[in-house]
């Protein structure tokens, strides 16, 4: 299999998984027909020609290197949706969003020229991969399953499944970064609301 074909097949996985999840939706009654139909429909929607190119080719124009973390999280979300089993627990998702938000805030502002320091260049050396292995170890010791997703990033990068040779692209992409920032924002908002709620509750008790 040529490298170009391998990169194309891998790049198609994340859009297909995301579209399948959207089509399956939140309906609690999942029939086999609905599941298979949704997976096939997602595949064919990505094949629809727009301006002489498939809609997947337009996706590739924007993002050729979906991260292994995003692809892994989409796989888990879809599997959880189909099987009804919680592979990722609440704390696993929480760590996934926190990791993504920290990585996005480290990478994008400086990578796009905020300072003379460019963290994206670290991805061509071994530093980011080693840091990822450290994070994965720490998470696995604490039995956090997001550590397994980080191993996927290490393996995928080693197998050259992406067009990019920069390890940051194995770990991060703008979609994962944006989702993580939104997810972290939601977590912070929830925490703020609960702390305000508990304060109000205490005030009520005092009065």
């Amino acid at each position, binding site marked *: 299999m040529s490298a170009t074909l391998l990169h194309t097949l891998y790049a198609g996985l994340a859009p297909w998984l995301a579209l399948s999840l959207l089509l399956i939706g939140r309906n609690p009654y999942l029939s086999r027909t609905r599941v298979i139909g949704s997976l096939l429909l997602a595949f064919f929607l990505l094949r629809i020609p727009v301006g002489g190119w498939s809609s997947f080719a337009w996706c*590739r124009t924007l993002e050729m290197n979906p991260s292994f973390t995003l692809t892994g999280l989409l796989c888990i979300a879809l599997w959880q949706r189909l099987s009804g089993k919680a592979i990722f627990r609440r704390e696993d998702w929480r760590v996934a969003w926190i990791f993504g938000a920290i990585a996005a805030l480290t*990478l994008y502002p400086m990578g*796009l*020229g905020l300072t003379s*320091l460019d963290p994206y*260049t670290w991805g061509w050396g071994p530093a980011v991969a080693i840091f990822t292995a450290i994070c994965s170890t720490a998470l696995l010791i604490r039995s956090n399953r997001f550590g397994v997703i980080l191993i996927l990033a290490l393996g995928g990068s*080693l197998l050259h499944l992406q067009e990019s040779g920069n390890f940051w692209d194995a770990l*991060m992409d703008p979609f994962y970064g944006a989702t993580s920032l939104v997810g972290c924002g939601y977590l912070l908002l929830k925490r703020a609301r609960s702390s305000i709620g508990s304060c109000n509750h205490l005030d009520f008790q005092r009065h």
Partner: protein
Amino acid sequence: MAFPLRWLLICIAWLLAGALYLRTPVISPSGDFVEATTAAPSTQRAPAFQKTIVNPGQGLPMVHVASLATMSGGIEAAVWYGGSAECAPDVKIYLSESEHGEQWSSPRVIMTRERAEHDLGRPLQSVGNAILISESQGGLRLVFVTIAMGRWSGSQLNTSVSKDGGITWSQAERMTLSPFFNFSELVRNRAVSLDSGGWCVPIYQEFLGKFPELLWVNENHGHLEYRKSRIAGGCSTFQPSLVPLDAKSSLVFLRDYTDNRRVFISRSDDGGWIWSKPAPTQLPNPDSGISGLKLNDGKLLLAYNASTSCRDNLVLAISNDQGATWKKLVTLEHEVGSTFSYPFLSRSSDGSINLAYTRKRKEIALTKFNEAWIAEALDSLSKIQGEAPHP
């Protein structure tokens, strides 16, 4: 998670990280700059100057951004892009050749939007800036910009190689150089060879910021390895022109995007890794491209637009103190209301200096001169200014 499984996964993580560590290619600024030490002495002792048009009668609404390379056998090659407008779908990259920089062959198309789309397997809006690199094995490498969407901020860098003097080209390969959708890397100025066999290519980004970078390229058994480093961040200077002073020291001249309206300069003494903060020179810059070259006697030559507001002239300036002070040497072009832009200085195999530039957006002009001509111009300048003759 079961205890043995957890430790098995940790072992796998470290094995993979170790394998990635061993696989990391060493293409950092490990090589010394070669251009500085191998500039061929000019074979012509008498002052020589000639001007030609590379693409006479090409008849395109717009041509722009010329670059030059010397192929094997001393043949000069020029590439530029042309079409109805910048970033338009009909823009193509053209190549022309000349044996002595006098008579240029008819321009032929070497890259189109359709060809790039086919090679890269995705839709594109246009092609743009391109430079040529003459490789040591006789190959010719094209580094060119494709625009995915929008204008220059939606651009990416790609490369293709020709082993037959630019007649046929390999399948184009995309380089991933930016973390945000690989936006927006561009190339314009001359690449410098490294003694490690690789190349250092000045590139720049213009998306949220505008800033200069260097692309370090090396071909390892047919596989292209690359990485980049940053000269400066922010949104102030870009389009670097790299001028090696010796094996480790180099200068970059930078186009200004600030209200200073000056050519900026930055220096590195560690092979291009760490750069000083860009500082303005005395030379004006109307937010336009510049090009620099080191002469055999150590002086620096710079081609630029001597204006803070327009590109209606093209001037050569010379510095005897590594860019600290400059003397305006000669005005090559001046016509009110016209544009003469994007100069590209390079040295030909006979040691003479070539300057390619966009003339009125309709033509690619090339002036060829030698260092004796520069010395003569400098002497004339000294006489006019009442200074001691040039040594």
